[in-house]
């Protein structure tokens, strides 16, 4: 079991940073390829006409999830050294609602706003500024939020643990649900397009 490499000392800190850049380049590349650098496409997800966000995200999640499982099963990867983000149930739920509202309003998430800015979208730049302001605002009110922020800590628990099934079964259920979700999503896209909801297709308005 020699992976993950960095926590086992096979990579220096600087090598790790170089890897960060390389992985980032690939990440940004694929995000743009899939169209997630376009606010219109991202927004269309929430008008049901373009389910790209859902399809890309969940495909990525199940790809990595299957990869983690099988690499560990083969003995190549030590899962104990793969960091599982700890759960803080209520702050994450409330933060998620706020995040979702901001996502809808702004049309981007942090990663995709970088991609949008990199391909020239002015609303992307502005969104980045807003995000930085939002983070600063949070920092300033943090002392008042600190207790809430740290509440309902459940540690690094995983879905299999709370569902009471093995990780294998949980994974299977998720993949099956994702595949069913994808075919349903395509049908929903057609229905919503037909109903005239805001779409990501057609000519983009080219006002500078």
């Amino acid at each position, binding site marked *: 079991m020699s992976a993950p490499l960095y926590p086992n000392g096979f990579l220096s800190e600087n090598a790790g940073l170089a890897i960060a850049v390389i992985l980032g380049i690939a990440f940004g590349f694929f995000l743009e390829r899939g169209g997630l650098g376009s606010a219109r496409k991202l927004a269309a997800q929430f008008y049901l006409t373009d389910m790209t966000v859902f399809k890309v995200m969940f495909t990525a999640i199940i790809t990595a999830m299957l990869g983690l499982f099988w690499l560990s099963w083969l003995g190549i990867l030590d899962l*104990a050294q793969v960091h599982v983000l700890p759960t803080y149930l209520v702050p994450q739920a409330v933060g998620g609602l706020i995040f979702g509202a901001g996502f809808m309003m702004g049309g981007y998430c942090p990663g995709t706003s970088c991609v949008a800015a990199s391909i020239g979208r002015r609303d992307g730049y502005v969104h980045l500024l807003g995000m930085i302001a939002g983070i600063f605002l949070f920092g300033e009110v943090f002392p008042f939020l600190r207790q809430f922020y*740290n509440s309902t800590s459940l*540690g690094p628990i995983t879905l299999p643990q709370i569902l009471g099934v093995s990780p294998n079964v949980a994974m299977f259920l998720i*993949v099956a649900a994702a*595949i069913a979700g*994808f075919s349903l999503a395509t049908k929903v896209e057609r229905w919503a397009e037909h109903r005239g909801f805001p779409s990501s297709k057609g000519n983009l308005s080219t006002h500078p």
Partner: protein
Amino acid sequence: MNTKLGFIAFGLALLAVVAGPSYKGGGVSINPRDLASIVDHELDHVTAFELGRSIMDGESTYIVIDLRDSSRFAGYHIPGAINKSLVELVDASYNPNQAIVLYSDGGVHSAQGMFLLWAKGYKHVFMLKGGLREWQEEVLHPVIPPRSKGRVGADSVQLLKKMSLFFHGSPALRLQIPERPRLQEREKMRDEC
């Protein structure tokens, strides 16, 4: 193309159901050199100050385990700690990603417990350096120096007092300047992305 991808994903997931556990913890294996290196670099312990601070700030996701016998535990234990004997400790199973801090009166039992858990494949196990004795000295009854300098200095006086009172101890003012507690320079995985 899409259907091909779908079949591959479904196939891999279905295979996983019958494949057996992916995390092969539980068996005993020791890599002596790694463990010795960890101890040498002092990556194996948390200081009383660190532990106290993280409990006080409410940011602690450690499980704290007290390895003494139950009557001593009833007498006093670090808030939030659970009581286990060494045998119970080794028999229990934990989330492999969970950080665990062990303590006893000094360091002997907790060090033994730590090695045993490492041998079982758990990676995030630490001991409280100096045990409960150091907890009493540094957290419950810290010595407040009359003067302090440096960036960390001024805050640490306030912090020591605050922490001591938080745990219902009593800070003591002395004339000699003792060693200031140092924060461990350990690479810490953040809880967020």
